[in-house]
């Protein structure tokens, strides 16, 4: 029961952060009304969790409730909103989240002992073990024989991200063409709504974090609709790891929008039952997204590239 409460609270915090991103992306101003229905659509959730997230923001004095009118924005300056987002992150800052974040930022190594973590975080042994259990359940961490714990490979370097794309290029199109693939129309509709909203935002307003969230949700949806249990399991675990540890990468606005359009094209093909076309579109989408920026470049010398040229 405590676990359910913890998850619900974290969902509300995540949703509240999503609302703050949307406020920034849409350039809303102090005094603007935040309609529950519209934000439910933007965030792809029903109205009940949306109201809980609004109430959380009200408690932080970001929103105010007006009887029979709804929730209104009280602050809209980007600095104040960023501060509010940080405040929410602090609320979200369970020990598990801090450990994960420190590993993703290369502050701690990939093999850890309980006693080392107790010292670093000045936490009790019980709290550390609990955090490790949470991370282990999420597939991020494995207990080694003995007392050490090892992190799974993470999205903590350009090479890791490139390896991830290489794997996804093999598996994601296959997930679509595997027998029995069935798109969940309700979730697809919600995804569409979120992506349409982002595409309607003004140039330069889509945040890297906002895009990464929608992107992992979209690819997670494709994985969940696959009927091959092993493909589905592998991809879902991988997308969870992406969501937990991939840093927001700075992608130019043009490419963010192009990628969202590609997601919508894939959904179009899936809804028409054109699975082979959707799989080809997925290949194209992943190839375009596979950022292969040179590692080093200087005049006169050939740029240093990651991996083989394609």
């Amino acid at each position: 029961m405590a676990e359910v409460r913890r998850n619900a609270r974290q969902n509300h915090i995540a949703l509240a952060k999503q609302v703050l991103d949307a406020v920034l992306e849409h350039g809303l101003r102090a005094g603007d009304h935040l309609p529950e229905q519209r934000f439910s659509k933007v965030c792809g959730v029903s109205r009940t969790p949306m109201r809980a997230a609004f109430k959380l923001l009200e408690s932080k004095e970001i929103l105010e409730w007006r009887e029979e009118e709804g929730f209104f924005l009280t602050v809209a300056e980007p600095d104040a909103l960023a501060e509010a987002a940080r405040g929410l992150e602090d609320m979200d800052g369970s020990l598990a989240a801090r450990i994960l974040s420190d590993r993703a930022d290369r502050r701690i190594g990939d093999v850890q002992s309980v006693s080392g973590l107790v010292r670093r975080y000045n936490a009790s042994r019980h709290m550390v073990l609990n955090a490790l259990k949470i991370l282990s359940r999420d597939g991020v961490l494995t207990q080694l024989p003995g007392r050490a714990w090892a992190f799974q490979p993470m999205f903590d370097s350009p090479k890791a991200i490139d390896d991830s794309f290489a794997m996804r290029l093999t598996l994601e199109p296959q997930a679509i063409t595997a027998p029995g693939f069935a798109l969940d129309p309700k979730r697809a509709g919600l995804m569409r709504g979120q992506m349409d909203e982002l595409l309607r935002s003004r140039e330069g307003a889509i945040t890297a974090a906002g895009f990464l969230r929608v992107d992992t949700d979209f690819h997670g949806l494709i994985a969940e609709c696959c009927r091959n249990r092993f493909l589905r399991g592998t991809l879902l675990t991988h997308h969870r790891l992406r969501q937990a540890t991939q840093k927001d990468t700075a992608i130019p606005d043009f490419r963010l929008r192009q990628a969202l359009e590609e997601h919508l094209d894939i959904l179009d093909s899936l809804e028409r039952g054109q699975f082979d076309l959707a799989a080809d579109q997925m290949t194209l989408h992943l190839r375009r997204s596979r950022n292969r920026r040179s590692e080093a470049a200087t005049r006169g010398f050939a740029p240093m590239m990651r991996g083989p040229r394609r």
Partner: protein
Amino acid sequence: MTAPTIALFPEASFGAALNCVGIAQQLQRMGARPVFICHPGFTGVFAEYGFREYHLPDPPSEQSEDAEDYWQGFINTHLPHFDLDPLAQLPAYVAPTWEAIVDTAETAEPGLRALLDRIRPDAILLDNVIMFPAIANAGCPWVRIVSCAETEIPDPAVPPYLSGLAPEETAACATFDRAYRAATASAHMRYNQFRARNGLTTLPDGEFLEPSPSLNLLLAPSAVRYDRDVPLREDSFVFLEGCVREETRFDPPPFAVGEGPLIYMSFGSLGAIDTALTRRMLNVFAGMDARFLVNAGGFLEAYDAVPDNVSLASWFPQPSVVAQSALFIHHGGNNSFCEALYYGVPSLVMPYCWDGHDNAQRAEATGTGRRLDRANWDEDDLRYAILGLLNDHPMHARLSGISRQMQDTPGTHVAARAVLSLL
């Protein structure tokens, strides 16, 4: 009327490439059709900004040896040279680099000619340090973009290119000039022969790229410009007050601990190969009350035990980051220096090669930043340099004025208007 096609051809460095993106974004807004000619290593960089790319062919297989070995060789050979002073770098780094640049020009020529035949541009924008005969022979106006320091265009009152000297150091300037010509003589002779074979006139000693007869765009904000003995012709030379591209919004990541000013450090993709220097600097940052964003380029995996007040990444949307920073520690690349000025942010310049030396000197001379020798510093030097710049209120006031002036006349707009007026 069909939109004019403008072919932009930046050299294979991120400074030139992203400078051109800023101009191309504005050209597109003004109704032109910018396209990019790019080196194979830059595939996708321009497409991500929405521009069509035309790729030069891959170099022959014997030149495209295993990338890891090639760059490991480069690092082993040249990393120690980055600690030398500009004069000592001439034979060690500058001369072999010019040889490599001439090789690049010769290798690229047939492919470039074929691409220009396909594109049939209405104008070509060349952001490079060397001329490609295919561009001069393309039959359309070409524009020279000088996105290196202003020293690239010589003048008796301007210190020699790459010297890091002040104009008043006349004796040292003369010595450097002689040494530069001697160091580049072999590459220069080979380049002139290549030009002659392709129907171009030869160039004077030390020069590898002539001014365009039509238009030359210099990325040199007025705050750091030199007084010239021979003023540049106003009908073909246009100065740009910064050339800042539009980037995605950047939200600083949460730091594990720490408050304090946000400091951004980037030595460019090439500078990032010196991971030992960066690690030394991280040790100093760890003890400071500030938050540091550090561009580790392609070398993130070289770091562990990153301090709690430091966040590393392999790429930052630099203009968005600089705009939020209280200090920018960089290598003196002209784009970085100009972005710091554009947003009114002090520069701590630690140059390692090329025009970084010139910009480091200029930052000190104009009171817009400080120079710190990359090889000879101890923890206190770095700490005090950072704190000194953060607390230099007269410098902040000066930079605010410079920033306002630059933002009032964005270089991207000036450049795009000048280019379109040629057509």
